[in-house]
């Protein structure tokens, strides 16, 4: 009997250890995969760079050369033009094609003062060369009045390009590509979405929680409300996406928006977040000691005053927790947003147009013909770090709530 029991216990223990071991290994593998692929791409430039590279042709109506000193910090592999104050290097783009990359541009360089020369809305607008751009073709007149073309298209090296620049008499045209592959647009769209969703969902959610916890009598209507909130929080978000398109889209249409948009995404996310906010806020209202309500009422405060002066302030940490969890949820959401905000990565997101959040940008990057693992992994790391920070904050807050009420 005891022997049998010991074997039985042994098997169960082994299974437990094995399962937890597998879980840990899987977690470590996921993290390793993401970090190994994406860590090299993590830098601050990424946050400020657009995703799409731009094609620009500029001319220089008033062109004057100068005399510039090579800054000390430039590496040996960078060729520097003393007449134009520009540092160039040889590089490769995502498709392993040769590039002539602007590594450094002196603040006084004449190359800052160009105007757009391609036909279109931007024609005549001021546009300068910028660091990080790739010089595709550069047309200039040299000191012998001969037209010279250099740049990546001509397979010129950085060295050759600089040599041509230092022999310049007149600048004609520069055709360059601004650097892409960044996440600036998605970052902005994510922030817009967070802001707008919270502005919609927080007041409604908090008010609903106050109603449920403070005013509602325990009857069938409130019970039905509670059950539907429970139900809502278990619904897969793709269904919210469908609801957004079919139910909320007409609302944004009334506002004159006829495509997917950040507003539509925010409305949808607000619906997704409501159950979370209501439940979290209600929880935090519940733990406010009943004694405080009595104290307030016994001092001649009305119920409304009691709620707004005593209960809500005491519930504030809980509401903050709800807010942070909501932000986490928005950052992690993708299914509900693909339908409502579209999958086109917008570098300059607008509320009334479609855009991608960071998570949806990953979806877009991976669903194309050439999945971009590196950038996707980098974005994943950024998302993981943000979510980690949010979770730590939530832990800290709930720790402080517990401490607060256990003292009194």
């Amino acid at each position, binding site marked *: 009997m005891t022997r049998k029991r010991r074997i039985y216990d042994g098997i169960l223990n082994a299974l437990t250890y094995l399962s937890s071991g597998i879980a840990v290994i899987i977690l470590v593998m996921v993290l390793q995969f993401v970090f190994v692929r994406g860590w090299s791409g993590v830098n601050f430039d990424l946050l400020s760079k657009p995703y799409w590279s731009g094609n620009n042709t500029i001319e220089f109506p008033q062109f004057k050369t100068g005399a510039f000193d090579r800054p000390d910090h430039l590496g040996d592999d960078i060729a520097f033009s003393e007449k134009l104050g520009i540092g160039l290097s040889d590089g490769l783009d995502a498709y392993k094609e040769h590039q002539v990359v602007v590594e450094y541009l002196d603040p006084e360089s004449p190359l800052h003062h160009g105007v757009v020369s391609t036909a279109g809305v931007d024609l005549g607008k001021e546009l300068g060369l910028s660091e990080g751009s790739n010089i595709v073709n550069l047309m200039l007149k040299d000191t012998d009045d001969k037209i010279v073309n250099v740049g990546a298209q001509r397979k010129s090296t950085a060295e050759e390009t600089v040599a041509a620049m230092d022999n310049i008499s007149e600048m004609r045209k520069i055709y360059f590509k601004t650097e892409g592959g960044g996440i600036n647009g998605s970052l902005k769209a994510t922030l817009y979405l967070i802001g707008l969703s919270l502005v919609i969902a927080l007041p409604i959610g908090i008010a609903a929680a106050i109603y449920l916890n403070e005013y509602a*009598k325990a009857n069938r209507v409130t019970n039905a409300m509670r059950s539907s909130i429970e139900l809502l929080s278990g619904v897969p978000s793709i269904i919210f996406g469908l609801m957004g398109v079919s139910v909320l889209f007409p609302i944004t249409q009334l506002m004159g928006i006829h495509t997917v948009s950040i507003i539509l995404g925010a409305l949808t996310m607000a619906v997704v977040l409501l159950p979370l906010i209501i439940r979290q806020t209600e929880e935090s209202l519940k733990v406010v*000691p009943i*004694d*405080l*309500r*009595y*104290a*307030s*009422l*016994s*001092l*001649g*405060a*009305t119920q409304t*005053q009691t709620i707004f*002066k*005593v209960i809500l*302030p*005491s519930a504030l940490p809980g509401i903050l927790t709800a807010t942070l969890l909501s932000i986490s949820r928005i950052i992690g959401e993708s299914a509900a947003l693909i339908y409502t905000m579209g999958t086109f990565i917008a570098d300059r997101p607008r509320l009334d147009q479609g855009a991608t959040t960071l998570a949806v940008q990953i979806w877009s990057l991976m669903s194309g013909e050439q999945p971009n693992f590196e950038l996707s992994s980098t974005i994943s790391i950024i998302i993981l770090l943000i979510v980690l920070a949010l979770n730590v904050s939530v832990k800290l807050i709930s720790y402080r709530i517990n401490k*607060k009420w256990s*003292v*009194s």
Partner: protein
Amino acid sequence: MKTFEIKDLNLWYGDFHALKDIDMDIRNNKVSAFIGPSGCGKSTFLRVLNRMNDLIDGTKITGQVLFNGQEIYAPESDVVTLRTKVGMVFQKPNPFPMSVYDNVAYGLRVQGIKNKAVLNDTVEDSLKKAALWEEVKDRLSDNALQLSGGQQQRLCIARAIALSPEVILMDEPTSALDPIATGKIEELMESLKKDYTIAIVTLSMQQAARISDYTAFFLLGDLIEMGPTREVFHKPNDKRTEDYITGRFG
């Protein structure tokens, strides 16, 4: 002078008959103590006087409760005004998680009083009356939860006093405190008596004997007897009162 006159008072929690045919007068500027075994309805009766039972679902109340001759359960009676005149101190100290100052100023602020000078004066005055001023005058902006239990309870008394009530109701105000803090609060009650009418629920016979002018003995929702404290303790009219008091003492 009678602050409260209660006639034929009955109270039910749902089907449970918690107070039965109570008749009682509460005299002004005296301390009235309510004693009786646990569950006999002392707290319930106290809450009748500032209508805190209104907050409990399913309570039903009949009879008359006159405060300065006015029926407080009349439809036109304003419960918010009543509670500013009839303050309450609870069994467990329950300061708000705010500063000491804000705690005392709370009652005035919800009345809409914002004048800084008025608030400052009232806070100082109330804390002095509650014998707490010397201990907290340098910590007015500290969170009230940092005070000791006894200080918290005196803060709650100051908070009630700040509204200049006529009556202060106290439900076992010292049961969560040590003997020294209890002594301080008992002293305080003695000094408050000249300005306020006090009704106190207590489980301690000694406390009732020490501090009260009148004592009422409750049993299972009935008011058995009420009279001057000396008489109730030394020659009670009812056998049950005597049993309870001597049982406790013996």
